[in-house]
């Protein structure tokens, strides 16, 4: 019984995964792989996602909430997954053809409509580019709806940069778009920028006039980027970020992902900074 607050597309058994087949696996970095899945019978997808929404990905050993990549023609679902725990270790060992479980879509997704007409500033660190990539792709598909697009991405090292083809080949070719990439420490064969994301952001100083900044990355990066944006004149309605908490059910029942009275899996994970200011400082 979906109520009016949620555009629910869930099944009658929201906690029971659908079995899908992994049809492709791409190594993104030494510890990030993209998994492409579709229904086992070869036809269609278990669900459609909006930019910023997530899915619960499972193997028998466990389940985890993973951001799901939006694409205009959804012939498969893509999950870009970093190896950090029990389930993701196991996922990194599977081969094409393996069946896994997925359920979703979960979460609110990015406010793509509300951002129309704005200059977009995307700021990501590490695997944090995965959710933003959906929004970035959406903007390029609807290029005329958005103003200038600035993408700033940082990772620990060159090897850890995700989605290199998009960063270095595809996105810079888009109109009225600038892409900036930085790594934490200098490397012999790296000619690009070296340094942390917040400092680089302040150096680039994209104008806050008519702009929205969308931030995703490790908590420590988010913390300092938010401070930088404030210094640069971005108000709390011009900053959007996504939160991460431990999740089990994905549908606002099991309890653990709450911040205050919000369940991040259901009401989030995307928030305007103004909304976060109203929550207990546990994010």
């Amino acid at each position, binding site marked *: *019984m*979906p*109520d009016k*607050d*949620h555009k*629910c597309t*869930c099944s*009658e*058994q*929201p*906690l*029971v*995964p*659908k*079995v899908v087949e992994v049809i492709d696996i791409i190594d993104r970095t030494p510890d990030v792989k993209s998994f492409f899945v579709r229904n086992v019978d070869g036809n269609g997808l278990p669900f459609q996602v909006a930019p910023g929404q997530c899915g619960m990905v499972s*193997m*028998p*050993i*466990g*389940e*985890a909430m993973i951001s799901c990549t939006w694409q205009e023609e959804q012939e498969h679902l893509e999950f870009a997954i970093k190896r*950090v*725990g*029990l*389930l*993701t270790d196991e996922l990194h060992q599977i*081969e094409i*053809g*393996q*069946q*896994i*479980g997925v359920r979703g879509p979960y979460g609110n997704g990015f406010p793509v409509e509300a951002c129309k007409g704005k200059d977009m500033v995307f700021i990501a660190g590490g695997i944090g580019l995965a959710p933003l990539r959906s929004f970035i792709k959406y903007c390029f598909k609807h290029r005329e709806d958005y103003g200038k697009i600035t993408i700033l991405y940082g990772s620990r090292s060159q090897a850890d940069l995700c989605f290199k083809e998009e960063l270095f080949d595809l996105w810079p070719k888009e109109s009225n778009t600038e892409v900036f990439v930085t790594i934490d420490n200098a490397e012999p064969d790296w000619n690009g920028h070296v340094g942390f994301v917040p400092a680089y952001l302040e150096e680039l100083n994209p104008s806050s006039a008519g702009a929205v900044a969308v931030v995703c990355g490790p*908590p420590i990066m988010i913390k300092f980027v938010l401070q930088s944006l404030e210094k640069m004149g971005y108000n709390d309605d011009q900053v959007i970020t996504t939160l*991460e*908490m*431990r999740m*089990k*059910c994905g*549908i*606002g*029942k*099991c*309890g*653990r*992902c*709450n*911040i*205050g*009275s919000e369940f991040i899996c*259901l009401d989030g994970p995307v928030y305007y900074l103004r909304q976060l200011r109203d929550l*207990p*400082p*546990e*994010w």
Partner: protein
Amino acid sequence: MKVLSKTKLEAALNKLSESNEVFVPMQKKAQSGYYPWTSFVSGDEIMLEALNVYQSPKGAVLPQTEKMYQIKQGGMEIKIDKTFEDDHPTIIFGARGCDVKGILAMDEVFLTRGYEDSFYKARRSANTIIANACYEPGSNCFCNAMEVNAVDPAGADVILRDAGEAFVWEVKTEKGEAVTAIIADLLEEKEVQLPQSKPFNQKVDYSGVAEKLKTMFDHPLWDKLSASCINCGMCTFVCPSCYCFDIQVKMWGEEGYRFRAWDSCMFEEYSREAGGGNPRGASKERFRQRFLHKLEFFTERYGTPLCTGCGRCMIVCPTDVNIVRIIDAVKEAEVNA
């Protein structure tokens, strides 16, 4: 009025048990809780006169562990083709108002806000609540402060009223009608004297607490209040409204099942993330989460507190954490604007 004579109580429980699993408050050796009537053996004691048995009846709708679905794995294949929604008819016989309120709170969680939990829905749809009105509050009771009407509990399908020799049998809903029909020949029409309601011993004032707590997340009072807590989780285990659950798996080689089990916000692992981070890694943070969930967050989200005033947590806590004193402390605390 309809009454069930106490001499016919066991006959009624036997009759109801023919078509329902009937959970009855019982003392079984050192344990008390709501157990299936069919498990009653010599030496057990029916505890309809006790106010709160140790274990609340929440397990009738949210079992401590519950199978969800079967998993079969073979080569590259995974099969999930059997789920375990359980809709066998159950009756909670003799639930007190605080415990009924706990189930109403779980109804909000599991059946609203976008998703219906199919496992909870199956059990709850087939569940009937026969409540037992309270006329004499116990020394730890404060349900009156937590939006519970102990004499006329909302959510009950039938209300029992202990009138000495007999229980008044008051039908409230269609589900109540259905179970009444089963034992119709054991009920009598008779006028009996209802007991007088006695006053509560605990004086608790929850008014304004949720609103005030919103300004007290970083208040030094949490350091003091949480100092003795050892995060044992007893309070969440006996609480009639604590519903948080974990999802786990049991595999024997290539076959097994995913199940859920009661979890506790008191445990460090509860909110620990895969990368090792934990927003509530410290004992104080988990303590604060529990009491804010009970007294502020749930009220903000669902319009009623998640504490039902049953008093169990105050009785079982090994370090004397006391939610009434926490409410008092919040009321008295000075808050810098």
